[in-house]
């Protein structure tokens, strides 16, 4: 399936489902106290964000950690079998077009060409995960692996209806990563909502985390040892900087939010909502033509449309607050 076709499909399906249906968080072996704390904080941040910002209920969130806690939010020990069982369960519990998000943190490695996430007992390999994800035939699956040496998961997991994000570009980037910390921050705040639509898309969270990683390394005057990548066109080749086309097309349409499309029973407001959508589409189209346009003409037209959009939005707000 081509990226464009998939994007067109997802634009509607995700809109209908409204956002993420299930979340699985896996935090692997820490090894040292500092990583126990970091991975724990990561898991907690993501789970809290899912509940508070995406509107997921207790039953829709599963966190498997190195040590099984007797109390929530950790549901069980993050062994290979437990992870695979959790995925099998999610495949049964979700339906077509549901968005399933799998987020992983820990230490990774690569043996031969097989990427791994270090878990208690046998590691979780790229092959294991790919087989488990095979059960999600109709769902959209987002896999975010923030572990070191996670780059190989892109090739292992790439496919239709998949968004795969890894903290590193290959298995050779073995140092502990910072990407996960910033990705979690993106999910838990509005910082990454760069288009200010009230939703943080997978692409926005990815770009935010990637940029902050670079800034952190630069600030510390250190050589950057992790380079995140994203694949959503299914070709198994990750992209670092997302462009207007190629990888990122789908990731822009999937958001970590349950904010539904605004509707109104008031015919006047409903008409304004239609007008707003028309203006948003016109602005997007204008931006697409920017490179080919005279800059003065572009700016004039942009300002005209943006003023109309602002006025329309203002009218919508006024209509919604009427007694």
């Amino acid at each position, binding site marked *: 399936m081509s990226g464009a076709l998939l994007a067109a499909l997802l634009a509607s399906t995700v809109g209908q489902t409204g956002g993420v249906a299930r979340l699985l968080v896996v935090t692997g072996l820490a090894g040292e106290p500092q990583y126990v704390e970091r991975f724990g904080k990561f898991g907690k941040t993501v789970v809290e964000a899912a509940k508070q910002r995406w509107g997921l209920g207790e039953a829709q969130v599963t966190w498997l950690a190195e040590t099984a806690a007797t109390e929530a939010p950790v549901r069980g020990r993050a062994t290979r079998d437990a992870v695979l069982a959790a995925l099998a369960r999610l495949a049964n519990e979700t339906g077509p077009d549901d968005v399933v998000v799998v987020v992983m943190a820990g230490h990774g490695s690569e043996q031969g060409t097989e990427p791994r996430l270090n878990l208690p007992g046998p590691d979780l390999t790229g092959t294991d995960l790919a087989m488990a994800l095979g059960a999600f035939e109709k769902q959209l699956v987002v896999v975010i692996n923030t572990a070191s040496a996670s780059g190989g998961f892109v090739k292992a997991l790439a496919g239709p209806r998949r968004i795969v994000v890894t903290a590193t570009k290959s298995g050779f980037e073995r140092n502990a990563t910072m990407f996960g910390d910033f990705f979690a921050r993106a999910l838990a705040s509005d910082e990454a909502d760069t288009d*200010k639509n009230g939703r943080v898309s997978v692409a926005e969270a990815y770009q935010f985390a990637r940029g902050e990683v670079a800034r952190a390394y630069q600030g510390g005057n250190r050589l950057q040892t992790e380079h995140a990548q994203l694949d959503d066109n299914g070709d198994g080749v990750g992209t670092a900087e997302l462009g207007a086309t190629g990888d990122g097309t789908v990731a822009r349409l999937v958001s970590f939010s349950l904010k539904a499309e605004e509707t109104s029973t008031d015919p006047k407001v409903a008409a304004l909502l239609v007008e707003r959508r028309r203006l948003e589409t016109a602005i*997007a189209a204008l931006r697409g033509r920017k490179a080919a346009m005279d800059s003065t003409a572009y700016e004039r037209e942009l300002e005209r449309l943006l003023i109309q959009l602002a006025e329309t939005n203002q009218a919508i707000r006024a209509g919604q607050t009427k007694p």
Partner: protein
Amino acid sequence: MSARFRVGPVVTLAVLALAGMTCAGDAVQDPAAERASLTRQLDRGDAEAVERALSGRTPDGLVGYLLGEAAALRGRLTRADSLFARAAGANSPVQALASARQAELEAARGNREAAVTLAERVARRLEAAAANTAADWLALGIAYQILGSVQPAQFKDALVAYDRAVAADSSLVEGHLRLGALFLDKYNAPDARAAFTEALRRDPGNARAELGLALVAQFEGRPETASLLAQAARSGPGLARTHAALGRLDLDAEAFDSAAVRASRAIALDSADLGGWAVRAAVELVRGDSAAFRATEAQVRSRHRAPAGFYADLAEALGRQRQYANAAALARVGVAADPDDPAALTALGTNELRQGAIDSGRARLERAFGRDPYHVWNKNTLDLLDELAKYRTVTHGRFVFVAAPEEIEILTLYLGPLLERAYDSLAVRYRYRPPTPIRLEIYRRHADFSVRTVGLAGLGALGVSFGSVLAMDAPSARAVGDFNWASTAWHELVHAFTLGATDHKVPRWLSEGLSVLEERRARSGWGAGATTPFVAALAGGQLHPMTRINDGFVRPTRPHDVGFAYYQASLLCEFLETTYGFDGVLRLLDGYRRGLGTDEAVRGAFDAPIAAVGARFDAWLRARFATPLGKVGVLRDSTVAPGELMALLASGKRMIEGGRLDDAITTLERADGMFPDMADDDSPAWALAQLFRQRGNLPKALEYLARVTRHNESQYEANRLEAELRTATGDHRGALAALERAIFIHPYDPALHVAAAEAARQAGDPSVVVRERRAVLALAPADRAGAHYELAVALRDAGDRDAARREVLKALEQAPAYERAQTLLLELRRGDR
């Protein structure tokens, strides 16, 4: 490269047969021993001993060759040539070697064509021969080396030939010496050192080998250069090149009288060697004695047909004296004499680059590199220029900034206004205006800055001034807290004033001293401050007296020397200003501009001999540090005998570790009273600030933090903490000042700029809010729409509604649904507020 010059496998190896010293009619008991003895004497520069020993012998064959070497050693080139010609007669064992030396003599006179013709003849003959002796391999190496001046790849063949000479006769010291010299000539210091060391192992006390090792050390910038040269001069007082090298060292140390004496000695020993002449000429130029220079130049011209190397040496020497325009002018004369001379082209290109003529400089270096592809400085510089081509240029008033695209906006946002202000205030103070535009190159990688400055990586400095061209490390080139980039830029700009005001004749101590002093005058906390090692050095009498203050910069012998020199020189300048007024300092600068030496310039400026001024300075210095002087400890021979202050600090640290915080505070406050200016990471003030903060005593914490940030320009954490505490106590203006200081240490944290914008807003300074919001945008934040919106708000609040409208449109272009931006757009359109 022509294949006929290659050393091919057909040429067989032979054993050196330099025997045959015995000539018809001569009776020599042990010719091999005598030959070895005479060679050793030549290597020690004792030409006279050789001439005495061979006096009365028929100058054929080896005798003629050795006499030729003795004559060459004393610069009697015509006689040397005729002796070599005779030695090169039929059946001579040194026939090829003598011919090769004739070719070298031609090269020494600047007759490149003749030299190449002779060298080709030697090479052709030896390549065609069925067997070669060690002497022949030596001759072949010399021939190839000469041919290398027109075909650079032949230098490799020369190396092979010298290697084979050594293989043919391992006792042949000359082979190792030639190898060492060639390696050094091609900038390969490790192999050069190995070759000279081997020569010295085979002939302990060989002055040429010792000279070679000294030159390797000099090439590597090692401090032992002077002692190695002195050793070489003791072993071989008759070697002119050693005296010329010593003269160059004196020249670099701005010890011009001594340099002139060394130059005269070198010329007296060998007037054909241009090294001594170059030192003499440099001294004459530095002193402004153009008549003497013209006479020297005429002498050189009478000895060398196209002395491009002389002008290149001279340009290099003047470049080291920071006289870049004069250096370029001289290098240009060298290039005119020989348009293909790589040294002259390099000197010209380098000095053009130092004056900001990038395209022209690059063209020269490319041409030089074509002639000498082994030149590592040129290779590095050309690579750097490729990197520089990716940089962006931004003009701000009288300044042109060149920096990496990722950081030019954030840096120029501050540097533009800062340096404009600096220029205006310094122009008034120095009554001089350096030529503009002033170009400041800011390097993201320290290695690039280092190459820009000295052609090689590894320079320890942060910035450099070539006059109106400045270069420095970007803050991203170093770890946070390593340095203050704003004060560094200010410091380098001051050099543009002091260099320009003196026609580039200001000595290092005064130039650096004034730059550091001006930093301190510009902002509280900027510029080097007093440290415990400095005070300990003062207590131990380890600082240079005023009469030798320049030695700390140009002749450092101990690790602390340069650091101490900067601070001491700034204190001397401060003393001169407070004692004699700044007019006195201006008179001093003017004295240097007029070419006076330090003694006369000081006397002219302050109407007192330098010894008297120095004595007053010593007393002033001791009075200034009277409080810590007896408490800090004493530095002697790089070892500090700790004083009471150190004991208290150690004790305070133990108390903190043991949780005895009250005792720690009492102890550290006692220590602080002994040296209130101490502000480094080990200072009592920094420890006390943290202790009081821990206890919630914010006023006391702030009192000590202010002490740290007032004396330490690069303490990032202290400034951040001070900003945090001042914000908490409602002192927004104080918080803003602390944040600005932190930004001048590390400008890349958007949170710092957001905090500064908020502090400025609270303090009612809308223009600073705008600057800080621009800074956030310059850092390419993830939330660009948000950053544009915040800037739009700041612009609106500052009264610039048009700019605010443009910014809010940028925000909405990226995020059309951004409701707050939409509201602002409509507000701006309506003309609200």
